[in-house]
C-alpha cells in the first residue's frame, strides 16, 4: 500500500507538484507535439535536449513520481516477470518495467552514462533495444580537473552530434548558448534559495519539495520554467523571513543521500514531533558552478561533474566527503539521517565512511534507515519511525 503523503498548505509544494506534472506531461505529449523524445540517464544534463527543442524523459525520476502516486508496482512487476531480480534497485527496475510494459512515452533516442551505477547504465541499453532506437553512451569521468572537463566537453559534443544526426536536424549555436544562459540563471537562483535555507530557523519546510530541491535545475536546466520556479521559492522564503512566519526548529537535519517516497510522512512528523527540520538534502545541495554561455558545452560539462548525486557513485566514495563537510558546516547541521536504499551498493557501502566522518570531525550523530527507494513491498515505515524515536530520545 502506498504511504500516505501528508498535505501541507504550501504555495511552494502546490507549484512544485504542478511543475513536475507539466514536465512529465510534455514527455507524454512529445510525439503529438511533433517533438523528439530522449530517454536520459538522470545524471545527464537536460540542456542537451532543450538546445535541440527535444524533450528529455528521465525514466527513473518518472518511477519516483509513480511511487509517490502508488502506481510504480506495475513497472517493478513487469521487470521482475522479465527476469530482473527482486533485490535489484527499484529505480533501475522501474525504468526497465516502463520499457517492457510499453507504458511510457516511446523514445526517439537514448542517452546513457555510467554514473550512478551499472544497473542504470545497462537499463538504458535495454530501452534502446526494446524500442529499436539509436543509443549514445556518454562517458563521464569522475575528476573535476581540467582534463576531466575537457574530456566530458568532448563527450557532450559527441552526444549533440549523435542527436542531430539521429533527428536529421542542425544545432543552433545561438540556441545552445541561450539554453546555457538560462541554465546558469537557474543555478544562481538555486544557490540563492539554499542561502536562505541556511537562516535560523530555516524558512522552508522539509516536505515542501519532497526533498527534491534539485529537480528544476537537474531536469529543466536550460528552461525559463526552472528560473521562474526558483525565483518563486526564493520569494516565498524571503516573505516568510520578513513576516516571521517560519516554523520553529530545534534540530537542523541533513537528509542523505536520497529521500525515499515511502518516508515522506516521516519528514513532516519530524518537524512536528521533534522540531527537527531537514534544512538540506545531499541532492538538494546547490554547487557553485562556473558557467559561461560563451563556452556552452564546457559549462554543461562543469555542471554535470558537479552532480547533485554525491554518494551515488561517480568515482571513489571518498570524493563525496567534502560535500558532507561543507553542508554540515554551512548549514550548522545537528544530525544526519541517512537512507540506505537496499538495492544500491554504493549508498549502502558508504554508510560507515560517512558516519565515521561525521562523528570524528563534527561529533554529529547519524541515523541509518533501511528501506527501498520506490518499492512499496519493502517499505518499513513503522520500523523507521521506531528508529527515529530511538535516535531523538538519544539526542534529547
Amino acid at each position, binding site marked *: 500500500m502506498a504511504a500516505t503523503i501528508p498535505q501541507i498548505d504550501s504555495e511552494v509544494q502546490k507549484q512544485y507538484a504542478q511543475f513536475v506534472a507539466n514536465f512529465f506531461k510534455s514527455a507524454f505529449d512529445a510525439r503529438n507535439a511533433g517533438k523528439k523524445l530522449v530517454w536520459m540517464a538522470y545524471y545527464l544534463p537536460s540542456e542537451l535536449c532543450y538546445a535541440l527543442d527535444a524533450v528529455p524523459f528521465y525514466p527513473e525520476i518518472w518511477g519516483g513520481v509513480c511511487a509517490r502516486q502508488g502506481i510504480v508496482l506495475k513497472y517493478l512487476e513487469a521487470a521482475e516477470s522479465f527476469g530482473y531480480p527482486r533485490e535489484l534497485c527499484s529505480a533501475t527496475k522501474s525504468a526497465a518495467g516502463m520499457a517492457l510494459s510499453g507504458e511510457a512515452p516511446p523514445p526517439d533516442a537514448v542517452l546513457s552514462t555510467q554514473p550512478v551505477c551499472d544497473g542504470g547504465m545497462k537499463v538504458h541499453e535495454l530501452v534502446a533495444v526494446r524500442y529499436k532506437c539509436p543509443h549514445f553512451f556518454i562517458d563521464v569521468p569522475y575528476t573535476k580537473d581540467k582534463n576531466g572537463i575537457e574530456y566530458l566537453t568532448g563527450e557532450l559534443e559527441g552526444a549533440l552530434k549523435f542527436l542531430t544526426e539521429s533527428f536529421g536536424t542542425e544545432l543552433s549555436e545561438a540556441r545552445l548558448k541561450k539554453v546555457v544562459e538560462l541554465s546558469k540563471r537557474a543555478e544562481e537562483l538555486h544557490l540563492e534559495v539554499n542561502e536562505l535555507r541556511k537562516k535560523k530557523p530555516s524558512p522552508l519546510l522539509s516536505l515542501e519539495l519532497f526533498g527534491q530541491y534539485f529537480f528544476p535545475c537537474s531536469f529543466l536546466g536550460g528552461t525559463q520554467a526552472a528560473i521562474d520556479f526558483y525565483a518563486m521559492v526564493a520569494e516565498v522564503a524571503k516573505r516568510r523571513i520578513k513576516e516571521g512566519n517560519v516554523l520553529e526548529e530545534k534540530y537542523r537535519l541533513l537528509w542523505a543521500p536520497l529521500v525515499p517516497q515511502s518516508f515522506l510522512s516521516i519528514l513532516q512528523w519530524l518537524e512536528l514531533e521533534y522540531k527537527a527540520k531537514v534544512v538540506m538534502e545531499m541532492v538538494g545541495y546547490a554547487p557553485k558552478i562556473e558557467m559561461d554561455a560563451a563556452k556552452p558545452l564546457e559549462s554543461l560539462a562543469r555542471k554535470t561533474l558537479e552532480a547533485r548525486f554525491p554518494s551515488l557513485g561517480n568515482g571513489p566514495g571518498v570524493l563525496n566527503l567534502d560535500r558532507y563537510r561543507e553542508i554540515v558546516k554551512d548549514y550548522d547541521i545537528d544530525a544526519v539521517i541517512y537512507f540506505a536504499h537496499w538495492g544500491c551498493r554504493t549508498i549502502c557501502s558508504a554508510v560507515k565512511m560517512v558516519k565515521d566522518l561525521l562523528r570524528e570531525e563534527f561529533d554529529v550523530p547519524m541515523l541509518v534507515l533501511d528501506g527501498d527507494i520506490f518499492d512499496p513491498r519493502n517499505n518499513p515505515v513503522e520500523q523507521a519511525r521506531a528508529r527515529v524515536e530511538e535516535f531523538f*530520545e538519544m539526542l534529547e
Partner: protein
Amino acid sequence: MMLVAGIDIGSLTAKALILEDSKIRAYAIIPTGVDSEGTSKKVMNSALERAELSLEDLEYVVSTGYGRVIVPFANKNITEISCHAKGAVFLFPSVRTILDMGGQDCKAIRCDASGKVQNFAMNDKCAAGTGRFFEIIAETMELPLEELGGLSLEAMSAAKISSACVVFAKSEVLALLRKGVDKKNILAGINEAVALRVFALLNRVGIEKDFAITGGIAKNVGVVRKVEEKVGLKALIAEEPQIVGALGAALFAKEALEQV
C-alpha cells in the same frame, strides 16, 4: 512510599514491573496477543495482583516496547533502547554495553554511567538472532524452545551453518537433519552463526566493559556462551533478563515523579 510501574509490550511477550521506591515489588510476563491493549491490561493486572495493589495505587506508569503507544493507562512512553540501557545500568552499574536480544530484533546499545544511550545499532532486514528465529529453529528440530541452549552445550562440534537468515537457516537445518547430523551439533552451529552476527552489531557501537545481555535470548545459555567467546567478556545477565526493559521504564517513571 513511591509506587510506579513500567510496562514493556514486546513483539512476543509483554512484561509489567512494579517498583516500590527503588525495589522491585512484583512483575509479570505473558505472551503478547493480537490485542495489544488487552494484553497491556492483562499483564499489568497480573503484576498488580502479585504486588497486592490496584492500578489506582500506581503514581506513574511508563510504557515501552513495540506496543508502547497503545497502553491506555501509561503516563508516558519511552523507546525500548533507552529503557533497556536504564534497566541494565540499574542492575549492573558498571555496564556500558548492552546486547538486547528480543523477540523480533536485536539491539546493540552503548550507554554512560547514568544509563543514558550514547549509541545504538539494530539488526536490519531480518530476524536473525531473535526470539522468533529460535522459535522457528525449535519447531523445525521438534525440540522444546527452552532446551535449545543446554543441548547445544553438549555438542561435540559445531555444524557449519552459513546463514543466520531465518529462511536460509531453516533450509540448512533441514538439510543437515536429513544427513543425520546430531541435533546438538546443529544447535551449536546455529549459535555460532548468531553470535557472529550480533558480534558485528556490537562492533558497530563499540564494545566497552562491562557487557550485559538482556531479552529472552539471554536465557539461552548456548547463545550466551558463543557471544561471550566472540566478545571476549563475561556477560552480565539479570536473574530475569526479559524484564530489564520494563524495569528501565519503571525507573523512568520514578524519575518523572521525582521531577514533579
